[in-house]
C-alpha cells in the first residue's frame, strides 16, 4: 500500500479526547467454527479518539470492527458501546447500530434508491424523522461531502470515490457518535482515495470518534492519535503514530511496516 502524503494543514482545535469511554472491549474472543479469529481482545476507546487499525490481510481487523456493531457475534467477553452492553438483546443491538455508523470497502449503497433516498432511508425508518427534515439533514451532509448536486442520481451513475463519500454521508445522517471504517479506500483508484480521505479528515477535525481499518499510513500519521497493529487475531502493538512508525517494538510490526512502507 502506497503512502499518500497528506498535504493539507490539519485543524486540531476540535480534536479533543475526553475521559468518557466510547467503546470498551474486555477479553473478547470469537471463533468461526474451529477457527479462532479474535483472541482475547482488550481495547478501550475514549470519546474523540481517532484510531487506525492495521495488520496483514486475514488478521481479523474487519471481524473486530464488525463485532462492534454486531454484524458478527462474539462468543465470549464484553463489548460495551456508549454504556450499552452488546448482548443478544435486540433492543440494545438496535440502539447501538443507530449510534454507530459504518463504511464498507465496497460502499454497499442501495442501487435501487437515489443518493438522497439512500441518505434519508434510515433517519425516516429508524429514527422516525419527518421526511422533509430528513431530506434537509441529508442535503446538509451531502454538501459536506461535496456532492449535493448528485442527490437525485442513482449510485450506479457515480464514481467510486463519490459513492464512498455518499456512504459516509449516509452514515452521518444518523448522527452517529462513533464511526467505523473498514478499508474505505482500498477499492478505489489513487485519485479518488484523496477525496475520500479528505472527507474523513474533516470528520476527524470535528471531533468524531473514529475506528478506521486502513493501510493509508499518511492518514494515520496525520490524523490518528493511536495506531493498532493486529496479527493472527491479536493486538500486537499499539502506540501513538509517531512512535509507532519510527520506533516499532515488535518484530512482526517491523516486518509489516517494512513491507508496506517499502523500506
Amino acid at each position, binding site marked *: 500500500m502506497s503512502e499518500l502524503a497528506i498535504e493539507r494543514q490539519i485543524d486540531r482545535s476540535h480534536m479533543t479526547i475526553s475521559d468518557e469511554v466510547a467503546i470498551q472491549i474486555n477479553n473478547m474472543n470469537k471463533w468461526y467454527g474451529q477457527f479462532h479469529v479474535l483472541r482475547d481482545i482488550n481495547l478501550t476507546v475514549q470519546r474523540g479518539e481517532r484510531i487506525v487499525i492495521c495488520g496483514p490481510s486475514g488478521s481479523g481487523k474487519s471481524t473486530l470492527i464488525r463485532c462492534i*456493531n*454486531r*454484524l458478527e457475534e462474539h462468543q465470549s467477553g464484553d463489548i460495551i458501546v456508549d454504556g450499552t452492553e452488546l448482548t443478544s438483546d*435486540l433492543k440494545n443491538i*438496535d440502539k447501538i*447500530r*443507530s449510534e*454507530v*455508523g*459504518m463504511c*464498507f470497502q*465496497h*460502499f*454497499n*449503497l*442501495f*442501487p*435501487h434508491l437515489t443518493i438522497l433516498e439512500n441518505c434519508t*432511508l*434510515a433517519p425516516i*425508518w*429508524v429514527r422516525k424523522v419527518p421526511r422533509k427534515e430528513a431530506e434537509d439533514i441529508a442535503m446538509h451532509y451531502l454538501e459536506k461531502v461535496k456532492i449535493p448536486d448528485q442527490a437525485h442520481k*442513482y*449510485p*450506479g*451513475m457515480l464514481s467510486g470515490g463519490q459513492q464512498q463519500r455518499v456512504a459516509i454521508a*449516509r*452514515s452521518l445522517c*444518523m448522527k452517529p457518535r462513533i464511526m467505523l471504517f473498514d478499508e474505505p479506500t482500498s477499492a478505489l483508484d489513487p485519485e479518488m482515495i484523496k477525496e475520500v480521505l479528505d472527507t474523513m479528515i474533516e470528520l476527524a477535525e470535528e471531533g468524531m470518534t473514529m475506528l478506521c481499518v486502513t493501510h493509508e499510513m499518511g492518514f494515520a500519521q496525520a490524523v490518528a492519535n493511536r495506531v493498532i497493529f493486529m496479527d493472527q487475531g491479536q493486538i500486537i502493538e499499539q502506540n501513538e503514530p509517531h512512535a509507532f512508525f519510527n520506533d516499532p517494538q515488535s518484530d512482526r510490526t517491523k516486518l509489516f511496516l517494512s513491507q508496506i512502507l517499502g523500506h
Partner: protein
Amino acid sequence: MSDNAQTVRYVRESMIPPSEPPLKEQGAVKWMRENLFSGWKNTLLSLVSIYVLVKLLFALVPWFWNSVWTAGSLNECRETLAVLEGLTTHGGACFAVISDRWLQLLFGFYPAESYWRPILVFILMFVALAPILFSARLPKQLLWFSILFPFLGTWLLWGGSFWVPILVILGFVVGAVGFKIGGRFAGAFGAVALGIAGAALWWMIAMPSINGALHKAVALSRIDGTKAELLETLVTNPAQIDEIEAEQAAVQEKINELTAEKDVLVVEMLAAREAGSEPSSDQKSAFNAIMDELMVERRHYTALGFTAFKLQQAISDANGLLANIEALPQWEADLPNAIVTAAEMEAALPDGLHNLVSVNQVPAGTSPEAVDALRAYLDADTAVLNLHANIETAYERLGILGLAPVTSRDFGGFMLAMIIGVAGIVLSLPLGVLLALARQANLPIVKGFAVAFIEIIRGVPLIVWLFTASLLLNYFLPPRTSFDLVLRVVIMVTLFAAAYIAEVIRGGLAALPKGQFEAADSLGLDYWKSMRLIVLPQALKISIPGIVNTFIGLFKDTTLVGIIGLLDPLNLSNSIRAAAEWNGVYWELFVFIGLLFFVSCFSMGRYSLWLEKKLQRGHR
C-alpha cells in the same frame, strides 16, 4: 545479402481509389457461400434443411391458401373446396369454423352483451402492469391503480353491486388499522395478530351483514317499481318473442331457398368437373355470392335466436323474482319460529350428539330414538339455513346496484385461461415471497416447513392438484362449505404457482450481494424493514424475468383445467366439435388455439429475455 543494395527509394504519388470486391465476395452470393455452403458438411445440412422446408411448405401453404372462411358447416366447406378448387377434404382448411365460433373460443359462454367487461379488464390490466414493468418512466401514483385493479377487475368480471369491492378493500383498511394499533401496544407479534384478526372479522362477519343490509335497503326502496317492471316484462316480452320468431321463420325460409339454389349450382358445377372441365367463372362467382348471402342470413338468424333467448330468460327471471317477492313476507315471518324450534330441538338432543352434521356421525350404540331426534334436528337446522339463504338471495337479486352478475360456469376460452393465469400469479406473489424468505431464514423449523411445502407442491403434477381441487377440497373444509369450481381452481393454482415463484425469488435473493444486507443492518434497520426497503425491491426486480417465465408456464398449463370440466379453449374445441355442423373439424381449431397461445407466450418470452439482458447490462 547486403543491406543497402536492395533498398530502393519509393514515394507514392497518386492514391488508389477504393474499388468493388470481386463478385464472389459480394451480396447474396457471398452470404450464401459463407452461411450455407462453407464446407461439404454444411452444404449437406443446408440441402437437407431446404428439402425439409420445401416439403413442409408444400404441405402447408396450399392448405392455408385454399382455406374456406364462409360456410355454415364442415360439409359446406367440403362442397366449396370441391366445386371451386376441385379439391378433396384435406386440400384446404375450413376456417369457417373460426369465423363462426371465434367469440366462443375467446369468451366461452360469457354473455355477449357484457363482452365489454372482460375486454375492459384486459386493457386495464396493461395500465395496471405498466408502472410495475416500466417503473422508471411512469409516475409512482399509478401504482395505486395497480393495487386497486384486482378488486376492480374481479367486480367487472363477475358483476354484482358496486359496493362489494369497496367493502372488500375496507377489510384491508381494517387490517392495517389493527396492525398499527397492535404494533403500538403489543409489538410486532401483536401487530400481525391484530391485523389479521381485524381483517378476518371484517370479511367474515361485518362485511356479509353490511352487504345484506345494503341489498335489503335498495330492494325495499324500489320494490314497487321493480314489481311493476317485472309484470310489464311478463306482458311485453311474449309478444316480442312472437314477433322475433316470425321474423326468424322468414329468415329460415330465405336460408332454405338459398341452400336449395346453392345445391343446384353445386350439382351443376360438380357435373362440369366430372366432365373434365373447370366450372365457369360466372358459376363460381354466383356460388360465392350465395355463400356470402347465406352467411349473412345465418348470422341474422342466430342474432334473432339470441334476442329471443334473452327475452325468454327475462321472462323466467321475472317469474322467479315475482315469486320471491310474493314469498318474502312469509319467509321472514317463518324465520324466527324456525330458529327457535331448531334451537329447542338442539337443546333436547342427548349428550354426545351436539355439533354433528350427519346421522352417519353418531357414536355406536346410540338409541334409535336419539338418532331420530338428531335427524329431525338436522332437518330443522337445514330449514333455517335454507330460509336464510332464500331471503338473502331474494334481496340480493332485487337490490343489486351495479353490473349484472355472471356465474363462473359461463367463463371460458382464452378469457378463462387469462383469468386463472393472472390471478394465480398475482395471488401467489405474496405467498411466494413469504416462502422464499422462510426458506432462506435462519430458523430450521420454519425453513423445514417451507422446503416441505415447496417440494411437495413441485413434486406432484398440476393435474393431480386440480383433481384435488375438484374432488378433495370439499373434504378439507368445514362441512357444508362449498364454493365455486373456478374459485377452487384459482386457489389450487395459486398454491401451485407460489411454490414455483418462491424458487424464482429465492434465486433473486441469492443474487443480491451480501453487502446489501450488512449495510441495512449497520444502519439499524430491523429484519422486516430491511427486507421491505432494501432487499425485496432489488430481489423482485431481478426476479421479474423468472416470474414472467413462470407465468408463461402457468398460462399454458391452464389448458389442464379442461380435464376437470372447465371450459378452457381446448375443451371448448371439443364442445364445438360436438355440434353437428362442425363434427370432424380438428386442425383448424388446433391451429387457431395454438396460434393464440403462441403469439402471447412468444411475445411474453421475448419481453422476459429483453428484460434479462437489460438487467444484466444495467448496474445490477
